[in-house]
């Protein structure tokens, strides 16, 4: 097992300062469509990095370039100190990839799938047999070892696909939507395994649409929109970027219209009615609260409940997306 795993909130060790993925000004187009534009970032050893973005943002394109499945148009992409375009075989020896679809060999048993991948990664016979058995045990698949991959449930298929990516004890593991389509227990089990993989020393590059998962698992988050990096930092740092906007939730004793509330609180950014409570996105909570109180007095309405909340990662993500969309739509 490698050393250098960093605790989520802990300090960096010497090993964790090592950069294992270095991307500089990466660009890729499909015909006239620009999938990636000048994307630059780095990932340190032992990190779990969440790479977020809406559909079509360029996440899978980035992973495919870093895994050697796709040629870049411009820029640099180095994994474990090696340029993926110049030395793809050596880079692939250092990385494990879990694609979005569980794509092991349907006709082969779980054990044979792992052993075959061990063969492709050049593991000696005894080592690959031992590694396959230990992964089957770690992923709680020992009782399914002889079952063909096609006979497994979706959750077990996903688990075996993650296990397969670890057969050669890679330094870096790319996980593309690892828990997509899984039920809650399977997703929780897989998240726990991802933590174990990281604790054992692997750097994890994770793409997911599940923001709670990204927040729970990752040390750092990158947000990609339309092929450009628009935010980078820990979940706390990203939330802080949009913290000037806060939510105010108010339940009133009588029906009022959205227009009345807008008139009462002219600075409000957005208003929505969620399960009987008005949700107001505001920049100044104190002023908005005062405005609501005077609105209630004027209209003889009682405030039954009033709550404020800091933005969640999802709120921050949406604010960043909306902000970027506004930039795109603004006239030059």
């Amino acid at each position, binding site marked *: 097992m490698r050393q250098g795993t960093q605790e989520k909130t802990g300090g960096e060790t010497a090993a964790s300062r090592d950069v294992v993925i270095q991307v500089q000004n990466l660009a890729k187009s499909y015909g006239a469509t620009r999938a990636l534009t000048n994307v630059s970032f780095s990932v340190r050893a032992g990190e779990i990095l969440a790479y977020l973005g809406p559909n079509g943002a360029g996440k899978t394109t980035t992973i495919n370039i870093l895994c050697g499945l*796709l040629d870049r148009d411009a820029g640099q992409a180095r994994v474990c100190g090696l340029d993926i375009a110049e030395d793809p*075989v050596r880079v692939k020896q250092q990385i494990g990839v879990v*694609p979005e679809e569980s*794509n092991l*060999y349907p006709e*082969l048993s779980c054990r044979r799938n792992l052993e075959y991948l061990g*063969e*492709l*990664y*050049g593991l000696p016979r005894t080592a690959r047999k031992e590694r396959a058995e230990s992964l089957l045990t770690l992923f709680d698949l020992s009782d399914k070892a002889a079952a063909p991959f096609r006979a497994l449930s979706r959750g077990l298929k996903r688990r075996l696909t993650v296990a397969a990516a670890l057969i050669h004890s890679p330094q870096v593991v790319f996980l593309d939507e690892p828990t997509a389509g899984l039920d809650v227990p399977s997703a929780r089990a897989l998240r726990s395994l991802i933590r174990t993989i990281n604790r054992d020393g692997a750097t994890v590059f994770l793409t997911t649409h599940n923001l709670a998962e990204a927040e729970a698992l990752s040390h750092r988050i990158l947000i990609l929109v339309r092929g450009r990096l628009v935010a980078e930092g820990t979940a706390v740092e990203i939330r802080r970027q949009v913290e000037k906007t806060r939510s105010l939730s108010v339940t009133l004793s009588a029906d009022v219209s959205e227009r009345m509330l807008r008139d009462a609180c002219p600075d409000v950014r957005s208003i929505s009615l969620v399960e009987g409570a008005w949700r107001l996105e505001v920049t100044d909570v104190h002023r908005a609260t005062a405005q609501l109180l005077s609105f209630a007095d004027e209209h003889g309405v009682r405030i039954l409940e009033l709550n404020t909340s800091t933005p969640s990662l999802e709120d921050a993500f949406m604010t960043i997306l909306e902000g970027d969309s506004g930039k795109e739509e603004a006239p030059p």
Partner: protein
Amino acid sequence: MSQFVRALFISRKDMESYYSKPPLVTWGLLFPAVLMLAVYVKDPSNYLGVAPGVIAMTLLFGNTSMAAIVVTFEKRSGTLQRLLLAPISSRTILLGKACSAALYGGATSLVLTVGLSLLVGMPIVNPLLLVAALILGAGAFSLLGLAVSASVREVFEAMTLLNFFRFPILFISGVFIPVAHLPTWAKPVAMLSPLTHVVELFRFGLSGQAYFASPAIPAATSVGFLVVSWILAEQAFRRRANQ
């Protein structure tokens, strides 16, 4: 562990997954065996004129089809991506896939040849040339199948493309009509067909008599076709890998 050993692992896995399945073995053998039986029953004295062509045809259809089906199937199921993600070169993948397809086609044709020899006493005057024809034909045809499969998405597309090439060359490659009996205009065209040279090499191996004066000519040309097929397949695989 060398790339060559990893190519052998790919071949072994393909044999295990696809080529050793009983329906596939019988499918590959049944059609040419029945065809040969029909020829033999009709005219036992002339079957040797057709046998080399039928054996070469078995190689052509078996190898091109199976190589194309396996790769197209793996592309659809996503398992080809597993190979592309592994620390192996596209050349290693190609070698592994070609070896297993060639082994399947070669074994099917060998069983047919040995079966005919045992059942109807078909002569094998030069086993070395027979083996050379099997290896060169199986290799070149497998690689052609792989080149086509890398360029298409669906099995039917691969089969359609292959049939544009396979069916016409049956009539100009000495399979049913010996090259010597072809019209004058067709003879130069026949020389461009890889099947012609494999058929003639089989003729040298089975009866010792062929259109060419020496077996070196079809053997050398078949090696040339093998090299060209390799280059085509490698280019197609490299293009595919970067898409």
